[in-house]
């Protein structure tokens, strides 16, 4: 049991640290300002090109096949350098790796990993949120193409996406979980329209609605077999619940460090309650780093994903919301006007207990699948 670097890990850490000293793009905190997303694609590509992204994925799709714990080192150094977090595409990568055939993997994964092709995820619908399996978007085969009609929502970064991983019903006759298939749909076509959603913290580019009105997709772009869409969705959302896959450790560490710097700069300005809020945020962020180290160590002999992703999701939520509370406590809520960066950090934190499956859904999963409590 060892949290310390091996010699190879230490050498990697130093190389990364040196590189970050000259290559930090200095973006605003993630998910708080539209400028962040405008610079994120370039950050993804720069980080990848320098050899610091896609560390644990197979070399055949552009990864480096390093042990998964290298991602912890990456997160730690991104925090230390106050650099943006790593791109959160790991859950899509895992979905395509597990369900896509060789051809699909070779066609789509390199661009997803190296950041040259941008992706979004079309799962949720206005009437299919927590009950995702009741989705109504349909895909009908016409010749060698599927025609897609439906309405997706919460499709993050859809306006910048080249591809959308769409869940659509291909067989309305079978039970709802079995009639769903997954497609890589090209976003650049006129039968797709987008509506950005303005979120409570003012951002307009992260979430959107996407309407497919007879959009076309090559049948070869189906990921997995017909009817395998639900299983693919479960793979994707289970990884989407993992802070180790999302790289959020760095997001929280950076925010906490910034709040610490504010107190350091003017210690007399902060009272006991603000210090207490900040101390919990420090501890929570540290807990998540330790927890991700544990989870990624468990993966040293291969990727598994089970119901424990729900535990990780709830821990990640606890951290994000503790950091959010410290943000308005120490950073200020801008109630008297002025810079509202910390208010935006706080308001965004409320979404964490909803996105990727609500906290209530996670608790149901833990109760039934880990604690093995009976269902009604």
């Amino acid at each position, binding site marked *: *049991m*060892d*949290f*310390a*670097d*091996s010699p190879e*890990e230490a050498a990697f850490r130093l190389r990364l640290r040196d590189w970050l000293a000259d290559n930090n793009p200095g973006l605003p905190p993630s998910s708080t300002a539209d400028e962040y997303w405008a610079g994120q694609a370039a950050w993804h590509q720069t980080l990848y090109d320098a050899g610091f992204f896609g560390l644990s994925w197979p070399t055949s799709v552009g990864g480096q096949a390093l042990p998964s*714990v290298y991602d*912890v*080192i990456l997160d730690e150094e991104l925090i230390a350098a106050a650099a943006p977090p790593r791109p959160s595409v790991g859950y899509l990568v895992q979905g395509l790796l597990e369900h896509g055939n060789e051809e699909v993997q070779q066609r789509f994964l390199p661009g997803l990993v190296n950041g040259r092709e941008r992706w979004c995820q079309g799962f949720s619908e206005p009437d299919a949120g927590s009950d995702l399996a009741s989705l109504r978007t349909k895909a009908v085969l016409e010749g060698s193409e599927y025609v897609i009609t439906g309405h997706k929502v919460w499709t993050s970064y859809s306006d910048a996406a080249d591809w959308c991983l769409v869940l659509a019903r291909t067989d309305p006759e079978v039970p709802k979980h079995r009639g769903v298939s997954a497609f890589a749909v090209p976003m650049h076509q006129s039968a797709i329209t987008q509506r950005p959603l303005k979120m409570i913290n003012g951002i307009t580019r992260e979430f959107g609605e996407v309407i497919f009105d007879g959009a076309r997709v090559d049948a070869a772009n189906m990921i997995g077999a017909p009817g395998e869409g639900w299983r693919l969705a479960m793979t994707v959302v289970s990884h989407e619940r993992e802070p180790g896959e999302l790289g959020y450790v760095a997001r929280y560490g950076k925010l906490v460090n910034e709040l*610490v710097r504010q*107190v*350091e700069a003017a*210690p007399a300005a902060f009272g006991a309650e603000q*210090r*207490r809020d*900040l*101390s*919990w945020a*420090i*501890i*929570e962020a*540290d*807990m998540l780093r*330790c*927890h991700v*180290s*544990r989870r990624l*160590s*468990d993966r*040293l002999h291969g990727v598994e994903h089970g119901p*424990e992703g729900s*535990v990780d999701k*709830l*821990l990640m939520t*606890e951290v994000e919301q503790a950091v959010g509370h410290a943000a308005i406590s120490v950073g200020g809520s801008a109630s008297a006007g002025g810079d509202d960066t910390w208010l935006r950090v706080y308001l965004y934190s409320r979404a964490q207990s909803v996105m990727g499956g609500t906290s*209530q859904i*996670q*608790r*149901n999963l*833990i*109760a*039934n699948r*880990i*604690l*093995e*409590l*009976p*269902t*009604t």
Partner: protein
Amino acid sequence: MDVRLSPEQVALRDSAAQVVDRLGPATVAQLDDAERAGKLDAAVAAAGWRELRTATGDGNPWATAVEVAVIAEELGRGLADAAFLGPTLAADLRRLAGAPTATANETVALGQSLSRLAETDEDVDATAVDAHGASSALLLLADDGDGRLGVITLGSAISGADLTRPVARQDGERMTALDGQTRVLDADDMARWQSLGLAAACADLVGTMRGALTLATEYAKERKQYGAAIGSFQAVQHLLADAHVAMEGSRSIALHAAWAVDALPADDALAACAAAKAYCARAARSVCETSIQVHGGIGNTWECLAHVFLRRALFSTEVLGGIGRNLERVLAARGIGGDDGLR
């Protein structure tokens, strides 16, 4: 980095689990079974777990704080009413002081509400902790210069909040310097020793949470109301799910703390352990309260083990500083603390 337990550490955990499952108190009534408690004590002694922190030839301990934590977690889970934390902390003090290993059962005396090792001139209320079977306790001998240890003789053990780990006070006025101390304890030694105590207490808290959660989960599967097991109701399920999450987060930060004790510079180790202590203490109270709540009225009776877990957690929480003190340490480690500092 590979933070999985080694095969040896897994084997150690399994043997500790077997001992507590066989000889620990399975009911509140069994806490009064002196024959059982004697067997548990003998098994812990025979396994050599109390000597993990005694010195090898080069002055290092026989085992790291990770092994201590592995044992402590299982003892906490099984509500073991045999001494471990106290003798382990005493052995580590002797090791740091370059003194010979104790010849009789020994523990440590803590002062200022259990938040630090007692000092003879300041802590008139010094409390020997985890004092089951201990005849003496170590403390700091303040009037003989800093960094020297003294020994007090203990009166008979008395029950505090924790029904599984009694405390004891000094018997009479007699205090002697520790025989054979060859090294004066410096500030780094004390920081590292405190780290060990905090990490061991965290592991005990994690074990306590596991035990309390298992108790409540099993009860929720069996207890029926409205014609169904109460564990089938979402309101109950979500309480237990939250308790499980709190336990898992605690486990991760406590594991890191245990590793830090021997692996990081003294201040960094203490900061890591302080963060873990605050987190685990908050989580443990919540998990143990949930266990009582899920048991309903029965959970509020003496006969239900749920309160024994809560009481054990309350004691572990106070050992070497509760939540408030450790939050201060966390801030001090980041350079924004108050007057009390990190150490």
